[in-house]
């Protein structure tokens, strides 16, 4: 296996084989992160492609001050949140869609999302959890997905989000409280 540093150096020289190795090595990590945030498989794949294209185009700007995976996570989180914001904007103007084109407001409504990696007996519960995650503010959503779905430590989450460890702890506490609130509403109304 080629060491990470050597791969990066080869990619900086425009080596396509190195690029392929990088994609193969980190694609699941990027895809899983994007999928957790956007909760749509097609969009997560598009984001994963865009993340690696961005890596190829701007590898010269990677100075090695952080881990390569941290840089990748940062691009993936940024691109995923950008997509969610643009979807939110589209939703706001959804009433214009029938006038402007053939896309209807229904196409912007997400269906129930089932993460493919969740164990079968947890599937139903995870659907409710992802619905609640979708209602979280961007930074809480990113912290929760990185920590819970990717299993990253608070320290690395803080490096990815460009903040401190206490700030991530606070983000996680607020995320859990908000999730509890949303889930309580759901379970109370479905009793």
């Amino acid at each position: 296996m080629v060491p990470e540093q050597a791969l990066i150096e080869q990619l900086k020289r425009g080596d396509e084989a190195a690029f392929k190795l990088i994609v193969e090595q980190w694609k699941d990590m990027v895809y899983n992160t994007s999928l957790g945030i956007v909760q749509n498989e097609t969009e997560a794949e598009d984001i994963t492609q865009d993340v690696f294209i961005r890596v190829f185009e701007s590898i010269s700007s990677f100075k090695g001050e952080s881990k390569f995976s941290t840089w990748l996570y940062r691009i993936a989180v940024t691109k995923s949140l950008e997509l969610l914001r643009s979807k939110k904007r589209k939703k706001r103007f959804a009433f214009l869609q029938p006038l402007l084109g053939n896309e209807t407001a229904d196409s912007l409504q997400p269906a129930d999302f089932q993460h493919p990696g969740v164990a079968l007996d947890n599937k139903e519960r995870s659907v409710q959890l992802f619905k609640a995650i979708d209602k979280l503010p961007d930074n809480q959503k990113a912290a929760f997905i990185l920590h819970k779905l990717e299993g990253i430590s608070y320290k690395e989450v803080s490096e990815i989000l460009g903040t401190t460890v206490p700030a991530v702890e606070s983000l996680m506490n607020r995320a859990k409280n908000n999730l509890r609130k949303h889930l309580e509403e759901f379970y109370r109304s479905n009793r």
Partner: protein
Amino acid sequence: MINKNSIQDEINRTLESLDGAERARANPFLFTRIQAKMNREKSVWSMLLGTISRPAFAFAIIAFILLANIWTLYQGNNRTDSANSAFQAATAADLPEEYNLAVNTFYDYETP
């Protein structure tokens, strides 16, 4: 009370539902798709740059700008000519009346 406890229990179990989840796997042909996307983006730009940098395109743009300038000048001249002649005609006929240049005194009316 029992109901409240069961809801809390349900919430806790839901919050733990992602524990031990496996990583979702990306498309096995992801690299091929990335390559295709990069080529597509490259081809759109290269097509645009290729068109712009062709000498024929540059000459066409220069010719268009020159023609537009000539047309603007021609239109401007025509407009000033017609405006001038109209103004001169109007001045000759209407100025005395317009500005009441005729000298009228009440002596004229009184003389038989």
